């Protein structure tokens, strides 16, 4: 019998894992289980073009229907896995059917963290994670005039920008003193705040939502300072929780995510995990660091490639440079690397003209680069970070410094992950 790979979760990580396993020579069954009725689709446009109306739904699928046939990937829509029987190597589905596996991959993703306050279940309150959420939100924006966005993270800010582009009044409420507090440097926060203010968004920073009251023409969002913001739409983007129940239910190690090693292997040698649901100690973190999860398309894809290699019995540790993007108004923010604990930084380009990059250093090593409307810097930064090239603050500060020539000295060295 050829080994069967069962993948639970059909978004970026699950699809990439299936494609990579098949592409690398897995010749047994590949079954891809998804709880949504739609074939795997792009999520980043949901808070951007799909919300503004510039990105039509038929453009969302990640692969064509023919792809699944040609790659012999058996996609099972609207299917939920209820539990894993590791002893018998079977999973139980929502309809009671049991599916045997030789290799199991958990790419179960994450779900939105729900707002926890009085009135939070009001019909005007929306979340933005999957296509169903996005469709419901788009419907609501047809008539909405005033919105309160709860959470100044990427989803909240992208939603705010899209709603502004539709002419809706927007107030963003953020508990921290700055937007993107958990995920970007203070400089980037300031720049994004300025952009939103310039586009007419009101920011309520350091404020918490305490209640949502039903009023005649919508809701009033009550803040902890007593302010009441009347609106007819609330969009909540306060983070996600990893879907770890299946893993925990069968006794796999779970600690803020499904714990995996550098090769995306869980504590069971037959089970891998990848994407938003998986927690790992990143290669860039100091030894002894806690495991963490990374919520991004890049991480889902690259970890899935590593996991697919493990399924095939190959050891290809996850070494990709993390990267991320966010488009808001005319700002294209692109981030490469991880700037946690940076001790110094330098700027290239012009902040006034809105085209610049911030280079972050920790102990004299380049650790991350954030670019705004400087895609070339972003691409070169990914190259530099993957090759570990030494670059100094002085280099970046030198007006005559040629980053492109510098990065291309190492041309030919593989960067990113192989496709």
């Amino acid at each position: 019998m050829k080994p069967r790979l069962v993948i639970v979760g059909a978004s970026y990580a699950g699809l990439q894992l299936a494609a990579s396993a098949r592409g690398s020579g897995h010749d047994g069954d590949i079954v891809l289980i998804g709880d949504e009725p739609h074939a795997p689709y792009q999520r980043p446009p949901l808070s951007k073009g799909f919300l503004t109306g510039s990105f039509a739904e038929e453009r969302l699928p990640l692969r064509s229907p023919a792809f699944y046939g040609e790659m012999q990937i058996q996609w099972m829509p609207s299917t939920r896995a209820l539990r894993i029987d590791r002893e018998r190597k079977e999973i139980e589905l929502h309809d009671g059917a049991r599916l045997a596996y030789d290799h199991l991959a958990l790419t179960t993703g994450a779900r939105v963290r729900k707002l926890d306050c009085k009135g939070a279940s009001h019909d005007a309150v929306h979340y933005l994670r999957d296509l169903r959420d996005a469709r419901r939100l788009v419907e609501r924006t047809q008539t909405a005039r005033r919105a309160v966005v709860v959470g100044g993270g990427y989803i909240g800010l992208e939603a705010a920008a899209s709603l502004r582009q539709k002419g809706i009044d927007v107030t963003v409420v953020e508990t921290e003193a700055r937007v993107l507090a958990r995920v970007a440097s203070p400089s980037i926060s300031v720049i994004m705040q300025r952009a939103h203010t310039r586009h007419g968004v009101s920011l309520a920073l350091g404020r918490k939502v305490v209640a949502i009251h039903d009023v005649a023409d919508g809701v009033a969002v009550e803040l902890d300072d007593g302010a009441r913001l009347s609106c007819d739409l609330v969009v909540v983007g306060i983070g996600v929780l990893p879907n770890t129940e299946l893993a925990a239910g069968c006794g796999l190690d779970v600690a803020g995510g499904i714990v995996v090693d550098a090769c995306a292997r869980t504590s069971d040698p037959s089970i891998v995990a990848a994407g938003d649901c998986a927690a790992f100690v990143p290669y860039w973190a100091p030894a002894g660091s806690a495991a963490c999860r990374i919520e991004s398309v890049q991480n889902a894809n690259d970890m899935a490639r590593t996991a697919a290699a493990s399924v095939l019995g190959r050891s290809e540790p996850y070494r990709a440079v993390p990267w991320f993007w966010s488009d808001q108004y005319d700002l294209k923010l692109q981030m490469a690397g991880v700037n946690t604990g940076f001790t110094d930084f330098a700027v290239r380009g012009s902040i006034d003209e809105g085209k610049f990059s911030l280079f972050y250093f920790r102990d004299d090593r380049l650790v991350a680069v954030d670019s705004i409307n400087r895609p070339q810097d972003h691409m070169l930064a990914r190259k530099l970070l993957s090759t570990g090239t030494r670059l100094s603050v002085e280099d970046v500060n030198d007006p005559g410094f040629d980053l492109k020539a510098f990065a291309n000295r190492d041309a030919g060295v593989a960067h990113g992950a192989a496709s």
Partner: protein
Amino acid sequence: MPIVTYILRDGKRTEIEVPAGTSVMEAAIHNNVRGIEAECGGCLSCATCHVYIDPSSTAELSAPDDAEEELLEGVAAERRPESRLSCQLVVASTMSGLVVRIPEKQG
């Protein structure tokens, strides 16, 4: 409908009818043309939809804009004068004779 010819890594050619307004990248994804990854979905963030305009191509194309030019710095295969990002090649109703070649790697 305009036809775009893709030359695959193994040298095979495949012709796809592409509706006007669709990018060469999206047409490849929708028609299961292998070798175009398009990790960012076409928002100029990843450079994994790189193609070469084949010498046999007769289509008139506008030059890459600054952002595309900049991202082309990050392509995984060799950057050549005929390199383009297929997400930025939007097919026009009058376009004909476009032939693109898939490079040997994207990531």
